[in-house]
Every structure is written in C-alpha cells, then in structure tokens.
C-alpha cells in the first residue's frame, strides 16, 4: 500500500518529486533536441553556407582570450615547477612539467572553461533572444529548419575550432614558459627543450585535441539547447545563459575525468 507523506516532510518530498520530474523532462527534451540535430545534419544545403562565418565567430574571435590565459598559465607553470624542483630534481624537468601539463590538462581545460563562458553564453543569449522575439518561429514559417540553419553550423564550428584554439593555446603556454625559464630561471634553451622532449609522446597532442573537440561539442550543444528552449522574456534569456555556462563548465570537468580514465 502506498504511504502518504504528511507533516513536515511533505514540502521537501514534493520538492524532490518536482525536481526529479523536471530533470527527467529536461533530459527528454535534450534527447529530442539531439535527435533533431542528427536529422538536421543531412540538410547540408542549409547549414553549409553558415559554417565558415561561425568558425570565425567561435574560433578566430576566441583566440585572444585563449592566448592570454595560456601565456600566463605557462609563466606560472614554469615558476612553480622551478620552485618545487629546486635542490631536488634537475632544472630541465621544468620543461617536462610545462609540456605535459599544458598539453594534457591546462591547455584544453582552461581554454575550454574560458570558451564555455565566451562561446556558450554568446550562443545561449543569441538563440534565447531569437526565441523570445519569435525569430525562430519566423524561420520556421519561411520554410527553414531552425536546427539546420542556426544550431548545426554552431555545433560543427565549435567541434572544428576548439581543437584549433587549444593547439594555439598549448603552443603559447609552452613559449611563455620557455621565455620565463630563459629570463627568470637561468635556464638555457637546450635545457628547457631537453625537458620538453624527455617524456613527450605524439599521443599527448592527440589526447589534447580529442579533449578540445569534445569540449567544443559540449559547449555548443548545451548553449544551443538552453537558448533554443528559452521560454519567456528577458529574464528567461538571462537564466538560459547562466544555465548554459554553468552546465557547460561542469560537463567539461566531467569529460576531463572521463578522457583521463578511458585514454590514459
């Protein structure tokens, strides 16, 4: 027999119930959204022409912030490595730590988190505004599949451009660390490069780029989903934008752990 919850537990139980139903419904909508993207992928005539412009907006325009973050990360990595190793481990290990850490972790993750803010928020706000001002409905009435016209170019562009941005960020981080080693740590270029090459394997680069591509896919898909499903007015657009950034950041960290478990 079903037991009816009464008294002080009623409100929290109702909240848990509502949250569970809301989460399940949200996952259902996300599943439908992904299925719609899958179907829209076949409409290349619609999304193809918009791809290059989106690659510029999502990738090229993100380079300055990614390079800025990478440069300072490289500087700090070199200094902290030197501080940690002094007196115990040869100096050229600074290059080992900088190379491995930039490629395997900080390059893709810090860039991914920065782009979750920049790109994810931008996408969610743009699509959310289009939704509440009925521009997405207008597209539909003009015979366009809005997923093919608006969503697929963004997702494809992020999938392609995140690895490109991360590759530049990795290079910038290593160059900044090398400059720091030369100028502040009394190291020579051969010393730094020796460390850099010591444990380097080409798979490190592949791993970095796989992570970056998965982050791009997650950030763009989540941003598009929250923007596309915005319901209400300006406040709803703000809420969608926040949700997109928070969830993208969380998914990046989960994916980071997932790739470490599965690929390393």
């Amino acid at each position, binding site marked *: 027999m079903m037991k009816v919850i009464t008294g002080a537990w009623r409100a929290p139980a109702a909240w848990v119930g509502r949250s569970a139903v809301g989460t399940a419904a949200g996952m259902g909508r996300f599943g439908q959204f992904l299925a719609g993207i899958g179907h829209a992928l076949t409409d290349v005539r619609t999304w193809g022409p918009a791809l290059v412009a989106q690659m510029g907006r999502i990738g090229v325009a993100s380079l300055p912030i990614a390079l800025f973050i990478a440069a300072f990360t490289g500087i700090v990595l070199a200094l902290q490595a030197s501080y940690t190793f002094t007196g115990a481990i040869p100096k050229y290990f600074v290059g080992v730590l900088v190379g491995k850490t930039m490629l395997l972790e900080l390059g893709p993750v810090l860039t991914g988190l920065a782009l979750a803010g920049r790109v994810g928020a931008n996408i969610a706000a743009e699509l959310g505004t289009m939704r509440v001002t009925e521009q997405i409905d*207008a*597209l539909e009435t003009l015979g366009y599949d809005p997923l093919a016209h608006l969503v697929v170019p963004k997702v494809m562009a992020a999938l392609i451009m995140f690895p490109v941005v991360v590759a530049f960020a990795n290079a910038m981080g290593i160059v900044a660390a090398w400059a720091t080693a030369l100028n502040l740590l009394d190291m020579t270029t051969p010393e730094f490069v020796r460390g850099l090459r010591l444990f380097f394997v080409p798979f490190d680069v592949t791993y970095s780029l796989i992570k970056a591509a998965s982050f791009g896919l997650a950030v763009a898909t989540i941003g598009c989903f929250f923007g596309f499903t915005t319901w209400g007015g300006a406040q709803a657009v703000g809420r969608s934008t926040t949700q997109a950034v928070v969830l993208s950041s969380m998914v990046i960290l989960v994916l980071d752990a997932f790739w470490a478990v599965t690929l390393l």
Partner: protein
Amino acid sequence: MSIVLDGVAKRFGTAVVLNGVSLEARDGETLAVIGASGVGKSVLLKSVVGLIRPDVGTIQVDGELVTELRRQDLYNLRRRVGYVFQFAALFDSMTVEENLAMGLSRVPGLSLAERRERVAESLRLVDLEGFGAQMPGELSGGQRKRVGLARAVAIRPKYLLYDEPTTGLDPVTKTVIDRLILRMREELGVTSVVVTHDMTSAYRIADRIAMLHAGRIRYLGTPDQIRASDDPVVRGFIDGRPELMQEPVT
C-alpha cells in the same frame, strides 16, 4: 481551398487554452478572430502553421492535414502560408532586403534577378521603397510591421495569417495597416485569418468575425451581426464591459 479547424484542443500543463475549436476560413475571405488577451488566439494561429501541435483535433490547410504532415511536407506547405508576427519578428542581424529574401531562397526555380525583383515589388506593396538597406533596429514600430507583412507576402502565399497586426500602433498607423491587409486581399487574392483584439480593425477588414472565449468559438458572424449580437460575453468584449463577461458557474 480553405483553412479548417475541427475540434482543436490544446493545454499547457494544467491550463486548458483551446477546448474543441472548430472554425473555417473560406476561400478568399478575411476571417478575424477576436478575444481577450491570453485567451489563446495566438496559439490557434500558430497551430494552423504547425508551430504548435494541438493535443486533439485536426487542422486542414489547402487540403492538407497539418496535424499529420511529416516535417518536410510541413515546410513545403508553409511556402503557401505567410505569417505576420505580432512584433514583426524580423531577423535583426539582417537588412530589410535580406529579411525579405530569406523566404524567397526557399522557393524553387526563382533566379537571383527574380528574387531581387520580388523583394522590390513586395516593398512597394507596403509603401516602403528605398528601405531595403535599412536594419530593423532603424525602423519605427509601424514600419517594422509593414516589413513583416512584406516578408510574408514576398513568397506570394495563398494564405496570410496575421497575429495582432495593429497592436501597439497609433490610430493613423493602424489604419495604414488595415488598408494594407485589404490591399493584400484585393491584389493577391489571399485567404486571411487575422487575430486581433482591436474591434475597429476587425470591423474594417473582416468578412466574418469569430470570437474565442473560454477555449471555444463563442460567436461567429459578419461584422454587422456581431455588432447587433445580444450575447452578454460578446457584448462585454466589444463594449469593454468585463462584468458582462463573468458567466455564472452552473
């Protein structure tokens, strides 16, 4: 061919918005759907083009069952239906010309020169020649509505759906929009459904007026018939007397 709704019902959560709406817009006529704000007029109009799927009932447009169409067939049908949005819904990152050309690029067999000519012709229809290079943000409310109308008619539809075309406009601009709606019927021969709560506009443009109330069609008749109606709900709405619209609970 016409637009036929049969027993259409739609609810959002626990709120029943449409509760068995049956209505027909006959070939070549202008049908106004009136009703208080929030009564479901826009939901009704969006259901006609498949933007909202009703829970129950059927909708037939140009002989095709909208409620049964596959996605691609629905997009094909929409090429025959122009939709004028309440706040125009212009693409704000595009110029007026680009807005108008959006729908035309989906029309098969139309060359680039023909598209340009169609855009210019549609802007002429709404008296906005020379506005093609402007951005939507540079236009007034009335001009935006006219561009929205031009975009809807650029594809030369057989049907035109207007969602509150005169809301938020001054009386002079309202008259301009009403005249444009009449002109569209005369020059393009379209069948139109106009959702509005503006009675002056409804009397001016409609062949018949349907009143939506409590999820159903409460009254359907010509402008003269609705003016003479003694139904308290209809009277309450057209005379602006809410106390008449409160029906006793039975």
